[in-house]
């Protein structure tokens, strides 16, 4: 394993703790306001969230296939899977944008326009929605950065930079992409599946 990969892993640990701060806040407030947190689930679209989870998992698959293609010097496959990963990534962001839009329509933007239908949970639900926007927003920001990296990857693979002897950047971007996927894997149940639905 070369230095750049170790550097990437170290960076990912930093990222774990960056998101960790928000997860800690989530744990504390969920423990403090269980009912208010549960009440928010009716605004969370499990179908869209679940679809997005699946989309991200698919993108992880295409990403790892892209890395594999680079390792085997299969340039065409590399380009194909990179493009597929970018398509999935973009699809995720588009769906996310629809979700954000519906939150906007439903007056669920903490701090600016927050009117909760259950007045008793007005404040406490706002904390959840703030954490929701913080966590998914940070996650989306990472996705956007990831798409930028994938664009770089695409350009470089079109230029025939990568082959079986040199593919470290593909691996690194792959690691980053999977990490972003892992974060979402935790966000999905914590944000979308809180309450008991019937």
């Amino acid at each position, binding site marked *: *394993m*070369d230095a750049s*990969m*170790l550097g990437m*892993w*170290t960076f*990912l*640990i930093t990222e*774990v*703790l960056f998101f*960790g*701060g928000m*997860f*800690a806040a989530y*744990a*504390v407030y969920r*423990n*403090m306001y269980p009912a208010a947190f549960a009440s928010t689930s009716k605004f969370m679209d*499990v179908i869209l969230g*679940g679809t997005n*989870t*699946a989309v991200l*998992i*698919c993108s*992880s*698959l295409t*990403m*790892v*296939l892209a890395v*594999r293609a680079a*390792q*085997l010097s299969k340039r065409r496959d590399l380009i194909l899977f990179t493009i597929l990963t970018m398509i999935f990534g973009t699809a995720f962001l588009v769906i996310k944008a629809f979700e954000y839009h519906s939150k906007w329509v439903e007056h669920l933007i903490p701090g600016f326009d927050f009117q909760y239908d259950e007045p008793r949970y007005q404040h406490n639900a706002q904390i959840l929605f703030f954490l929701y926007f913080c966590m998914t927003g940070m996650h989306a920001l990472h996705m956007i950065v990831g798409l930028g990296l994938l664009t770089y990857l695409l350009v470089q693979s079109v230029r025939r930079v990568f082959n*079986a*002897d*040199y593919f*470290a950047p593909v*691996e690194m971007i*792959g*690691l980053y992409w*999977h*990490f972003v*996927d*892992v974060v979402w*894997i*935790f966000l*999905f*149940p*914590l944000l979308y*599946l809180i309450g*008991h*639905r*019937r």
Partner: protein
Amino acid sequence: MSTHHILIPKVSTLVAVWAALIVLTGVTSAVSYLELGEWNIVVALLIALTKASLVAWVFMAVRHSTTLTRLFCVAGLAWLSILILLTYSDYHTRDWTYQAKPWSTNKAAGDSR
């Protein structure tokens, strides 16, 4: 260079892991519709942890990587747990000290948090 040690994953393995992840996503969504009380969150987190481990182990190639990488993964998890558990311990044990003794020992008081 690193090429000498690279083990190229089989496509079938990757697709199998992908399928498992999709299935687990379905499972975690389905389980959330069951009334399991406190266990809902436990199950959801266990499934998420399984999924994350699958991604890390196969997609991120931890299974083929050095002890050092594994150590770094474990360290990340360990420090995350330190942060969350020690913070949570404060909130969780606050009542242990200050809760006044109830006058009547009715049944509900027993499971007071």
